[in-house]
């Protein structure tokens, strides 16, 4: 047999060992080079070790960072650290209390009659034509360094008149290297209020402010007519300083007035929201140059403020970094708090200058599993608790009090809980023929359903116990909410053994029978009453919830037909008033009962374009609402709220589901943690012990190398029989 004319091949075993050894060496080098010094799983650069940096995560990219548009909590967690409205909520005091931020004091309203004459504080509301707020801001507050303020030697703005070629070369704001700053003035606040009226900025509160700020809507119309048309999709700079309207006025360099049409006592709360933060015209002049928006340089991407932090890296697909603003004015940690705050160590930093941390690095973490694991490894300083991780982190004692599991305590992790100023409710469409209207029959049906749907069970099953059963429209922490026996909904609960107890299902059945639906049967057809439930739980996760809801109605013999859809269609049905029963929620804008009762105010019905999704209307409630919203907190207001609550409980347009409870965890090296559900600018109060964090990270994350050796060993052991067989074959082939 002719021998093949080939190059001689080495024996298979030698070939394997010749390849395997360098491969293993390469793997080891690569692993060591890639991972650096232990801990190898540290996701942050080694250079940051020991630095005073807070590490957190965000799960969703913020849509807007322009305070004129931003209106969601994930956006506020960034911009509230940067922009400073005149007021803020006291970090420690409860109930939530407004205190000055850049203002010298919380402004007191001045009431004027139709002729502009001042009225006394207790003037007849009918005589009040205008309410005026005079806001005085503190002098000496300066903006963060920003290219919009950079000037040349002649005082001309360095970047306000860039050529198209220069703009074409820009990709980020940092491509403009020179920065400047200037003092905050009252004009900046007025400028921002005018921006709220600018039609093309689409402020979500423009409609609301149009109802309250004097001349706001007319001003908006004037702007629409006077503004230049967009060029290539971009609107040239439109200097709002040249246009005035009666609703706002610059009084002097440090004072401005806001005039409200009639009365709107809740307006002062809006002054604590970023909508009313200052905006320097220079920033808008810079970013409105043609081509800037095309290059992603907009106010929606690059905020500019006077707050304790500034956004130094905005890559919401990866990371957002807040760094200490070098020009921040000297705010100090509060010296007063609530009983127990001193014992909890929350007043130890009293009087010390803010902020305490140098930087805050927030990484994008879309999935809850890696987020949670990285928190346990010490790479995030704070975390919420997802449903998946709840049992691992929290346990409830016999009294129902939440506490940490032994594993969490061992790690020194601490738990903070707070009932949110929110409500989830089951709404009945009052326009519906069966469940709606003010007939006795429909009311009894609604009350029966309210008893049958056990939200205590819902909280336990679907919210891991994180919630408090609702007794009325006002959650705890809002003026008017009553605790204890006086606060229970007597149509749904009894007070037993010192706690509210849901009425037995027999009472619900009895109410149903009174309504004419004996055993849940429709007297006209003799078949079980069918009720349609509009659900936004169209996905597989919602199936368990919907099944649970069906069972609640089945207790009464009612057949619940679920119409599951997506959120868009759900909203559409609500707007058109075609739903029958649904669940929805509300998160307070500000801690005032008006912000909840307006959801039940007749003129605010959803089918008329408002937020009253149940389309509920009760003339007495509407009258009391009009009165209550203009009253100061006190016994008189409490009495009105009590009556309103009673009306709503009796009419039952809502079954008051539950007030969600927020649970959050933080590591032992994070200090000054107190949940504040109204304030968004709390980052400045947090302090850290980076040394402890470094030690714990090292202790918790030692690289475990034996698995690498085990994998190699398995591969080698697995290869040996193969080598043996191969050799045998080669030998046999050679025969």
């Amino acid at each position, binding site marked *: 047999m002719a021998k093949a004319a080939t190059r001689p091949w080495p024996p298979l075993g030698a070939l394997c060992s010749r390849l395997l050894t360098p491969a293993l060496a390469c793997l080891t080098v690569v692993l060591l080079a*890639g991972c650096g010094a232990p801990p190898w799983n540290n996701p942050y650069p080694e250079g940051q070790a020991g630095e005073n940096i807070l590490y957190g995560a965000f799960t969703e990219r913020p849509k807007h960072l322009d305070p004129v548009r931003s209106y969601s909590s994930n956006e506020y967690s960034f911009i509230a650290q940067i922009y400073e409205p005149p007021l803020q909520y006291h970090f420690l005091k409860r109930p939530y209390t407004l205190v000055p931020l850049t203002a010298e004091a919380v402004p007191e309203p001045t009431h004027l009659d139709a002729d502009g004459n001042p009225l006394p504080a207790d003037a007849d509301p009918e005589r009040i034509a205008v309410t005026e707020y005079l806001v005085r801001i503190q002098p000496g507050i300066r903006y963060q360094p920003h290219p919009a303020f950079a000037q040349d030697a002649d005082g001309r703005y360095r970047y306000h008149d860039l050529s198209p070629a220069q703009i074409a070369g820009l990709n980020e704001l940092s491509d403009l290297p020179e920065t400047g700053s200037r003092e905050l003035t009252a004009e900046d606040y007025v400028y921002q209020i005018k921006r709220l009226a600018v039609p093309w900025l689409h402020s979500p509160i423009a409609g609301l402010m149009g109802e309250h700020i004097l001349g706001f809507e007319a001003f908006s119309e004037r702007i629409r007519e006077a503004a230049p048309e967009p060029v290539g999709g971009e609107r040239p700079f439109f200097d709002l300083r040249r246009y005035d309207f009666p609703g706002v006025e610059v009084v002097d360099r440090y004072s401005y007035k806001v005039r409200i049409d009639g009365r709107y006592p809740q307006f002062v709360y809006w002054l604590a929201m970023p909508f009313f933060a200052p905006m320097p015209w220079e920033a808008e002049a810079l970013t409105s140059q043609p081509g800037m928006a095309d290059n992603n340089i907009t106010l929606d991407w690059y905020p500019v403020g006077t707050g304790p932090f500034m956004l130094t890296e905005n890559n919401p697909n990866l990371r957002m970094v807040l760094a200490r603003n070098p020009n921040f004015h000297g705010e100090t940690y509060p010296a007063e708090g609530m009983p127990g705050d001193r014992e909890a160590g929350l007043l130890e930093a009293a009087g010390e200058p803010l902020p305490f941390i140098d930087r805050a690095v927030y990484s994008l973490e879309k999935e809850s599993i890696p987020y949670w694991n*990285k928190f346990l490894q010490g790479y995030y300083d704070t975390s919420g608790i997802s449903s998946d991780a709840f049992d691992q982190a929290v346990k409830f004692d016999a009294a129902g009090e939440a506490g940490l599991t032994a594993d969490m305590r061992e790690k020194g992790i601490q738990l903070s809980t707070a009932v949110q100023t929110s409500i989830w409710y089951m709404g009945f469409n009052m326009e519906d023929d069966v469940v709606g209207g003010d007939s006795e029959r429909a009311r009894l049906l609604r009350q029966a359903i309210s008893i049958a749907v056990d939200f205590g069970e819902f909280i336990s099953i679907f919210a891991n116990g994180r919630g408090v059963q609702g007794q009325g429209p006002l959650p705890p922490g809002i003026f008017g909410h009553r605790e204890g026996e006086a606060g229970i909904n007597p149509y749904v609960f009894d007070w037993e053994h010192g706690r509210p107890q849901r009425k037995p299902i027999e009472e619900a059945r009895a109410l149903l029978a009174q309504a004419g639906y004996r055993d849940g049967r429709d007297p006209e057809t003799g078949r079980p009453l069918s009720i349609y439930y509009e659900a936004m739980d169209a996905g597989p996760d919602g199936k368990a919830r919907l099944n649970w809801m069906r069972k609640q109605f089945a207790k009464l013999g009612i057949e619940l037909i679920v119409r599951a859809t997506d959120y868009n269609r759900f909203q559409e049905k609500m707007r058109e008033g075609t739903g029958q029963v649904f669940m929805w929620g509300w998160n307070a804008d500000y801690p005032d009962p008006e912000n909840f009762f307006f959801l039940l105010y007749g003129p605010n019905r959803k089918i008329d374009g408002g937020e009253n999704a149940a389309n509920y209307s009760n003339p007495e409630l509407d009258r009391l609402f009009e009165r209550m919203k203009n009253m100061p907190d006190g016994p008189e207001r409490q009495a009105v709220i009590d009556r309103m609550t009673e009306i709503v409980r009796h009419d039952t347009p809502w079954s008051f589901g539950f007030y969600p409870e927020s649970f959050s965890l933080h590591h032992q090296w994070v200090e000054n943690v107190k949940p504040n559900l109204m304030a968004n600018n709390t980052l400045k109060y947090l302090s850290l012990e980076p040394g402890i964090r470094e030690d714990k990270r090292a202790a918790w994350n030692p690289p475990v190398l034996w698995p690498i050796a085990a994998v190699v060993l398995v591969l080698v052991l697995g290869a040996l029989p193969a080598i043996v067989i191969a050799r045998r074959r080669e030998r046999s*082939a050679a025969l």
Partner: protein
Amino acid sequence: MSAYIVRRLLYAIPILIGVNLITFVLFFVVNSPDDMARMQLGDKRVTEEAIQAWKADHGYDRPLLFNAEAEGLGALTDTIFFQKSVKLFALNFGTSDSGRDIGYDIRQRMWPSLAIALPVLLVGLAINISYALMIVFFRATYIDVGSVVLLVAMMSISGLFYIISGQFLIGKLFHLVPISGYDIGLEAFKFLILPVIVGVVSGIGTGTRLYRTFFLEEINRDYVRTARAKGLRERIVLFRHVLKNALIPILTGVVAVLPLLFMGALITESFFGIPGLGSYTIDAINRQDFSIVRAMVFLGSVLYILGLILTDISYTMVDPRVRLS
């Protein structure tokens, strides 16, 4: 060949129009311009006027596909479909509904996608080919049977399982690499190890099985029999003859997916927090940002067509018998 390429490129135009039309119809069956406006403006306190203003500002105030009020050609051109689609053919993706330059975002985000996809492709190819060759070498033995069972099992497991297991074992238990995240420059390396391992391991089942089939097909051919008859060792037959010929379908298959590497991996990027084009697309769908969705679908179609043309060209290169006409 140039005539062939030009013809294929011309064929691509109606395909792209069709893809664009289907994307448009599917998107707007689920979302209306009003829904998009509400998504951008938020849930709270949004007035009808604000919605109409947003639609007008973003060009969604026109009819979707046919403008009955316009005259002549305007009935087709003064529509959302035409206005939003025509620039795509010049690869001008415009701005997203939230105001970002889509082209810039794509240029930024394709690198992280490539940083994962390329190593996964190359390392995966090397491992899959080696493993497939080994199985073929030991065909009809326990190693062959055992490997096929293992590969079928690996194919049957969800990709998500590999991701979660990888994060749990390598990141959480063994503390060898970060569980998730990404960084720029060399710092990115430590974040890529785990997704690349997961990508490679999850692809072994499918890849090796496929390549094993290619090799087995070749190994029964006459030229292999001839090589064996010449007395060549089995190893040499495999490496020198079988591998070379089986590489033709392997390489042409790889060429087809090369352009698509830019598009990223949807789930992997999401779980590992990689800011690539896969997560860009998912985010856009979640945010109902039609401008990004249509841009990404269009880009994907263009790249796919490009991949198919490259495949045809590569056939002519690796197999001289093939001629494009």
